[in-house]
């Protein structure tokens, strides 16, 4: 009896939490397909339309440009950050160098600095370099934000890989670099994938730096959302359509690679 009660209680709680988490997302999706006059109505009966999506991609909103900016910034950041971080993480994990712990702490400590504190120096620096309102500035800033995080994440994964296979490869005739490429990265694949996604999501969602460092040319999607708060009020239907455009790629990505998260690659390496 007690067990049945617990079973139902657990389900009810899960359902409640899911509802709380999913409701705003569901509401955003619904609003994206509503006409402006339906946007403020709480009724679920409305005539769906795609006009919001057409509007956000045309003048003056031009969401297309922002999509290009966001994709370019996020993809470039991932492509640079993950390989660099993987090498750094491997070094931190495997080489016993003097000052290793301190260096690792130093890298991690950059994560403790609130973004607001450094945003002004960044602004001045990029202005001096003539890089304000460019994707390069955003990529550089995002690299500084995500790389320490990815190093830390990957180090955890690499630490968990037994060194036997690596040593076997070294003796079989592989160089250290070849060992990383042929043995460590494939074995750490779930970790690398997880880090890649986190890195992509962090960069994709990054708001504060993009808001301050861009004006017209390099504006990314999250900053673009703000432009739907106009003098005529908040354009909820358009903002929701843009919101859908931001969230859908992340959803699809998560769905596609979800199964890789759980599949361990180290099974069978050692006893």
């Amino acid at each position, binding site marked *: 009896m007690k067990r049945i009660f617990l079973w139902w209680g657990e389900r009810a709680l899960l359902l409640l939490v899911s509802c709380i988490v999913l409701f705003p997302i569901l509401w955003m999706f619904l609003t994206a397909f509503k006409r402006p006059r339906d946007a403020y109505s709480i009724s679920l009966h409305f005539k769906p339309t795609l006009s919001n999506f057409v509007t956000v991609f045309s003048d003056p909103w031009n969401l297309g440009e922002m999509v290009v900016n966001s994709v370019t910034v996020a993809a470039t950041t991932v492509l640079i950050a993950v390989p660099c971080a993987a090498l750094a993480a491997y070094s931190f994990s495997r080489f016993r160098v003097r000052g290793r712990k301190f260096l690792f702490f130093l890298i991690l400590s950059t994560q403790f600095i609130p973004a607001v504190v450094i945003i002004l120096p960044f602004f001045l620096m990029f202005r001096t370099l003539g890089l304000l309102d460019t994707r390069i500035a955003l990529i550089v800033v995002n690299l500084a934000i995500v790389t320490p995080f990815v190093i830390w994440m990957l180090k955890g994964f690499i630490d968990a890989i*037994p060194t*036997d*296979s690596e*040593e*076997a*490869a*070294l*003796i*079989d*005739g*592989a*160089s250290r670099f*070849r060992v990383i490429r*042929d*043995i460590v990265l*494939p*074995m750490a*694949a779930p970790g690398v994938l997880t880090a890649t996604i986190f890195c992509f999501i962090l960069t994709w969602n990054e708001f504060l730096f993009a808001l301050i460092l861009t004006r017209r040319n390099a504006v990314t999607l999250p900053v673009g959302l703000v432009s739907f708060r106009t003098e005529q009020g908040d354009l909820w239907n358009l903002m929701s359509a843009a919101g859908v455009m931001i969230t859908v790629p992340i959803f699809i990505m998560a769905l596609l690679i979800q199964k890789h998260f759980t599949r361990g*690659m*180290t*099974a*069978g*390496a*050692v*006893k």
Partner: protein
Amino acid sequence: MAEVKLVDVEKRYGSFLAVPKQSLTIEEGEFLVLLGPSGCGKTTTMRMIAGLEEITAGDLMIGGERVNDKPPKDRDIAMVFQNYGLYPHMTVAENIGYPLKLRGFNRQAREARVAETAEKVELGKLLKRRPSELSGGQRQRVALARAIVRTPKLFLMDEPLSNLDAKLRVTMRAELKHLHHELGVTTVYVTHDQMEAMTLASRVAVMRKGRIVQLDTPKMIYSEPANLFVASFIGSPPMNLIDGVISQGTFTAPGVNLPVSAADRGNVVLGIRPEELDLVPADGEGLFSGLLYALELTGESTLVTLREGTTVVCARGGADFDAPIGTRCALVPKAGARLHLFDKDSGERV
């Protein structure tokens, strides 16, 4: 094939001395076993030869060439690890073929060599499987195949059989012995299992606290242990070691009275192997007379333990030996039995 020479090699981890300065020459084509209890430095010694550990001091020569500063890949060695060290994301064929791939063999040549090697260790039917789909014995054979797929100067084996069950271990031991006979490659083998050491080795180096305490053929290690440590480590059941004194040509200890040809001295340890003792009726003249303490039937024989005061002596009796616990029995050395005398303080052979 190559000769391996360790000249005054030492290994330190910070201030901790793992392997004190020592020299060792492994002859070309030899099967040398490093034997010792856990933590005695045998694996560290092997890893220094492999290039997986830096050498703190001294020189390591393989085939007459100093290799201290050479990375493992340039030492032309193959190694079998205790935990196999397979590549889990590769198939059995890819695992075995990896050393060839690194040496630039083309696909065809690789496949032919892999198939040939796999047949040798009876893995022919499993080539497309991944390590996770194999049993422990099969994984061990993949590790072995990966080592023998090419002919290196030197084989290193780090307790390769320790993860296998007892039956498989015996089979694999024979396979290793046969492989060494067939390939004739210099082999260094690390184990804490004296049975493996005795059956496989051309020579055994018994190690204790980082030092080689005896280096000799298995036969000599067994019959002429250099000190108390080797005497007690080799043999199952171990050698009987009885503390006593020698006076007027007789070794005496509680329950023991045995003529020996040695000068008088105190603080001496007498060693005699259980299989060199015979059980005799209690009323006869015996080396050792005591009360029956335990009987252990091993199948082909019975281990008989007698006790008198602080002295405990074990002997190997016939499989049909039986007597009630507590019976008084006596033991005499068989004709031609070896008696070993050790100094109790230094542990060295007298």
